[in-house]
């Protein structure tokens, strides 16, 4: 039998009121505690360092691109055409081509992806079909972009005789964006509290009425965040665009025209090494675009958090 007080009483009489460690039952235990503290602090310090390295890498890349690219950024660089073998001048048509193809891909991917997510989250019964669809979406998300590029080339361009164009690239890109938007939307829908749905069903609404008037509006901020992130992915995509849109510098008017995206432009400049200045400028513009999209997504999320 153990009397927890006898020991403490003895100690207290000797030491008077003291800190906890004075009453620790024995020295071995104290040493052990000390060792654990040390291990703990070392491990936590290592975690701090790891996070620090990650942030440092980011800062390094951003600073490097900003410092080298910032002097290039001017209205002239943004709004004029490149000319000559070394692509002097601006990048205006590549900006337009990038926005054009990304917008088009969004138009194609968004309705399909959102409705697919509605099916998975609201309608489908858990079963083999859902498993297959999820697996397919996961696989689609992990298809290497070069494979997607070759597929775009073989399918849209060669089999369907579409020209290397905005449309071919947008179709290929939409396949890339589909799983991203699907997943974001499905998660957003699943995050809608059940009682919100009950409220609607309780008033006699049909499933579609509930989904379209209650669930989707409620989930909208997060869906938009997913859309924005998918857009960022499409803007930066190089390999897919390379094989489906080509690299001719062109100001696209119709979807069947070819063009050169900013990412492809950057790749060509960087590999040739003839006009590194323009490459830095293009890289900075590309990062700025994606940064702005990210900020926009964060802004939406923050507003959404405040409201709900």
């Amino acid at each position: 039998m153990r009397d927890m007080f006898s020991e403490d009483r003895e100690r207290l009489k000797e030491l008077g009121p003291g800190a906890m460690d004075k009453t620790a039952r024995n020295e071995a235990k104290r040493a052990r505690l000390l060792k654990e503290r040390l291990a703990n602090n070392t491990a936590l310090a290592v975690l701090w360092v790891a996070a620090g390295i990650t942030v440092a890498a980011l800062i390094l890349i951003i600073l490097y691109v900003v410092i080298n690219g910032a002097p290039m950024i001017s209205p002239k660089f943004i709004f004029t055409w490149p000319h000559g073998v070394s692509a002097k001048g601006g990048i205006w048509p590549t900006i337009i081509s990038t926005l054009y193809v990304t917008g088009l891909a969004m138009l194609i991917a968004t309705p399909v992806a959102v409705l697919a997510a509605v099916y998975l989250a609201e309608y489908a019964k858990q079963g083999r079909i859902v498993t297959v669809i999820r697996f397919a979406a996961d696989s689609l998300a992990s298809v290497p972009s070069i494979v997607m590029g070759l597929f775009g080339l073989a399918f849209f361009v060669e089999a369907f005789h579409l020209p290397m164009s905005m449309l071919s690239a947008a179709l290929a890109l939409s396949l890339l964006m589909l799983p991203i938007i699907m997943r974001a939307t499905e998660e957003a829908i699943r995050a809608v509290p059940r009682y919100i749905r009950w409220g609607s069903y309780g008033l006699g609404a049909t499933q579609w009425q509930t989904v379209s008037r209650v669930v989707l509006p409620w989930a909208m901020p997060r869906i938009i965040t997913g859309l924005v992130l998918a857009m960022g992915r499409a803007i930066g995509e190089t390999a897919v665009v390379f094989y489906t849109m080509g690299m001719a510098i062109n100001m696209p008017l119709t979807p069947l025209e070819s063009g050169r995206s900013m990412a492809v432009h950057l790749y060509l400049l960087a590999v040739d090494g003839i006009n590194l200045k323009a490459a830095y400028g293009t890289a900075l513009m590309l990062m700025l675009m994606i940064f702005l999209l990210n900020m926009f997504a964060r802004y939406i999320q923050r507003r959404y958090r405040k409201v709900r």
Partner: protein
Amino acid sequence: MTPATVHDSTVYTVPLVAVADETLFFVRNLEFFYGDFHALTNVSLDIHPKAITALIGPSGCGKSTFLRCLDRMNDLIAGTKVEGSVLFSGSDIYGPGVDPVDLRRRVGMIFQQPNPFPQSIYDNVAYGPRLQGIRKKSELDEIVEDSLKRANLWKEVKDILSKNGLAISGGQQQRLCIARVLAVEPDVLLMDEPCSAIDPTSVQKVEDLMAEIKEEVTTIIVTHNMQQAARVSDYTSFFLQEVAGEPAVLVESGKTNDLFTNPQDKRTEDYITGRFG
């Protein structure tokens, strides 16, 4: 022996050694803040060793908060602040140089929701002993069996010790958590509404085991169930938040029997006769 006393705001100055003989936790003028929110004010309370103390009161009255002050679990919540003194075996647990890790090895805690680790039943119980450096299989086996027996769970799980701790029923999970705590032989067991999320059979078993371990472990139990408090406890303390937004206070505490049969404070009487939620 001591009659139920009504707490007032007197500042206590009691010699610590003398206190250590009679009380395990010696709490004086405790104030607690969640950020700007003043949650508890002027709580002074003695917890007697080898007895079961129940903390009762309507929900939101700060009894769980108070309980979490006793093993410094509130440290884990950002922005909390404690004032006043809490002495454990005569030492100020909020004093300089006190290691909450050491404190928590001597003061175990059971939570409202059973929270076994997603590991085997055996590993769950062996977790604490392993933390303290016990590696020998035979020794661990013994501790695991003994703890599960004391937690009234051994018969049900002795053949499935390698099963995941999450795979058993909620009531069994809760008893597993109790076994896990008992395995480190704590001086004190803090129970935060341990029976509010489990089935009646398990409630019975938990109450039985509380009585069985009373000689070794001091138990403090938060419960919203007055019958349970009356059934299991030796001492009872009644907390109340009188006005929403204001800090809660400790209204009255004393021997359970005295407090339930002869409350000194009108508010206690109102509560135990059911005039409060």
